[in-house]
């Protein structure tokens, strides 16, 4: 003890003292910066997801604003006379121009029909007087207009008569048009025209009616999400995500069946069999493929692979899930290879020696000792590959045919989730239901990737490893 005490006396030491705490700023800042970067990246991921999902939310909720509607409804009543004046002028012209579009009008009125029903339901469920007011305001103006019109223009009385008769019968239009095409359609048109004019010319009412439409579309969209049709730009849009999800899974499975065995075999060869010089050539060469722009692979698939495979398999659609899967497999191979090779290389050399010393051949060693020992890494590699294929946009866009079909035939065109976003983002209306659905697809991609990682974390590290390597 006395010796210890002597040593702590500063005079006898070489100038280094440790009895006072010293703040090392470089250490401090380095730690803080690294920590900050780590948390920032997490925060960015969360933020991106939040943003993407927020854009998708309107599908699930209706977003009418009661206060705005209130003012609008007051405007409606004040501006109706002016609108009527306009209507009268364009009325005849509209009739002639819109006459050919018989079918579309039929569908539109069908759309309108449920609208009214929904409003009725809303008022029953929640006594929102303001909203109800909008609806009633919207309808009465028409009737008012008709009244004024009938007074002004005698010759068109018949039309108006049809219209007023039709108003309550909106749900039955479809049936009626079948019976008497000409008259009824005319009536439909006029009803439509009045509606259109209110939307187009009265700015105040435009807001309210648009709100109604988006809300309506959202509700319709929500109902069609589970359908089997992806027809976002039709007059009766259906946003069925099932074929997209199905197509994505199909392409992913095909590409993994193609890429995973190849990449893992290549990794086994490189890690276990190849001599040093061979390894130095193979590894960078395959890894260089990872830096290959996917648009180039897509173009190659579109031009070359599709034709070659078609001449081999004689399928009818040139671009299909199989071609897309092979092309995306090419993109996924380097990803799987790199991780799998690392995993195999990091298996202790002693395993290899022990197995050989027991009289196992090299292949037996590779498959029964090295591969099981590298399972977590190999699984991670495959999951990364799946992630790559799942999110792959350009190749999917170019090589899969982009038809949202749900057949089991691998030689059928498919449309993947990512390719859908890629193809439609440019033409979608900002804030539209379609726009929201695309963001919903985006958040689905997000969630799927997240789930993959979760599976990797909990299933592989928990159960699978125990089964292979013992408890």
């Amino acid at each position, binding site marked *: 003890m006395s010796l210890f005490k002597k040593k702590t006396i500063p005079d006898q030491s070489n100038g280094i003292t440790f009895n006072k705490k010293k703040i090392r700023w470089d250490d401090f800042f380095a730690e803080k910066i690294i920590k900050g970067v780590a948390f920032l990246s997490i925060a960015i991921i969360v933020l991106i997801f939040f943003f993407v999902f927020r854009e998708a939310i309107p599908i699930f909720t209706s977003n009418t604003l009661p206060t705005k509607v209130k003012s609008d409804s007051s405007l409606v009543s004040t501006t109706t006379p002016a609108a009527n004046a306009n209507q009268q002028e364009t009325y005849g012209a509209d009739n002639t121009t819109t006459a050919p579009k018989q079918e579309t009008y039929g569908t539109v009125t069908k759309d309108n029909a449920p609208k009214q029903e929904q409003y009725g339901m809303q008022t029953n469920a929640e006594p929102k007087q303001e909203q109800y007011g909008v609806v009633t305001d919207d309808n009465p103006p028409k009737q008012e207009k008709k009244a004024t019109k009938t007074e002004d223009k005698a010759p068109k009385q018949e039309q108006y008569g049809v219209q007023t008769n039709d108003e309550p019968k909106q749900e039955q239009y479809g049936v009626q048009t079948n019976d008497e095409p000409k008259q009824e359609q005319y009536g439909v048109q006029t009803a439509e025209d009045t509606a259109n004019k209110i939307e187009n010319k009265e700015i105040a009412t435009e807001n309210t009616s648009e709100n109604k439409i988006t809300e309506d579309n959202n509700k319709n969209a929500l109902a069609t999400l589970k359908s089997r049709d992806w027809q976002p730009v039709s007059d009766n849009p259906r946003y069925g995500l099932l074929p997209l999800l199905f197509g994505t899974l199909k392409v992913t499975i095909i590409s993994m069946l193609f890429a995973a065995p190849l990449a893992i075999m290549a990794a086994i060869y490189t890690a276990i069999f190849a001599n*040093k010089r061979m390894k130095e050539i193979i590894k960078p060469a395959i890894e260089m493929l990872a830096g290959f722009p996917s648009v180039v692979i897509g173009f190659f698939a579109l031009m070359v692979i599709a034709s070659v495979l078609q001449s081999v398999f004689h399928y009818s659609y040139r671009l299909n899930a199989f071609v897309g899967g092979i092309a995306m497999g090419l993109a996924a191979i380097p990803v799987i290879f790199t991780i799998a090779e690392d995993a195999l290389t990091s298996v202790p050399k002693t395993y290899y*020696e022990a197995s*050989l*010393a*027991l009289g196992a051949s090299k292949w037996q060693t590779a498959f029964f000792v090295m591969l*099981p020992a590298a399972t977590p890494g190999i699984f991670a590699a495959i999951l990364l590959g799946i992630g790559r294929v799942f999110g792959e946009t350009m190749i999917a866009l170019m090589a899969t045919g982009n038809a949202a079909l749900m057949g089991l035939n691998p030689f059928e065109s498919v449309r993947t989730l990512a390719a859908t976003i890629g193809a439609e983002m440019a033409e979608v209306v900002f804030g539209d239901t379609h726009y929201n659905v695309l963001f919903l697809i985006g958040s689905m991609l997000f969630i799927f990737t997240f789930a993959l990682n979760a599976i990797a974390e909990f299933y592989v590290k928990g159960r699978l490893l125990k089964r292979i390597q013992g408890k």
Partner: protein
Amino acid sequence: MKNSKIFTENLYLHYGSKMALNNINLAIPEKKVTALIGPSGCGKSTYLRTLNRMNDLIDSVKIEGNISIDGINIYDKNIDVVNLRKKVGMVFQKSNPFAKSIFENVAYGPRINGISDKNQLTEIVEKALQNAAIWDEVKDRMNDSALGLSGGQQQRLCIARTLAVNPEIILMDEPASALDPISTSKIEELIVQLKENYTIVIVTHNMQQAARISDMTAFFYIGELIEYDKTKNIFTNPEKKQTEDYITGRFG
């Protein structure tokens, strides 16, 4: 010697341009324990690994000379190395059980030899574990990971794994160097038991261990075989001065 199992004649081994073994001549008797001693880097482990051709795994190795087991030159062109290694088992310095269950570790050898019958496998595994004196400790946890065993248990499991292939010769490369004294003594007892049925060649740094368990002792120094004789003679009455200096602890 009449009952020699392994004959080594004029063996030279080079790592690239560096000579690791220089003209080794050695006859290892059957069903005896032969200890190889010497300071680090003297070539005793290298020599051990030539006996089952594990040095083939290193690209730069060049070997000249003859090693024959039961009269067959193992460096002949027509030798099947895989089957040679089935005959000449090896236990490594660092215990290296596979990342599998205890049962699978021992069953691996028989399985790659084509035995797939579950009952037969169970029998072989049990016998091997009993011979390696570890059966009582692991019989209730056969499906647990082998990596959960202690160091000494792992090493005995590795011996059991080697025994399961039913070799004739067992090479041991410092099998107890990383173990505590109790585990070491267990391994030593085991080796003494095993020599009834197997020819054992053991590399060790521990001279007491060599004296305790071996029948023959070879002293290597800088790639050369300095002295080879019965253990009793080496430790009591060495012929060469280098041997005497080493076993008395003056160098090495």
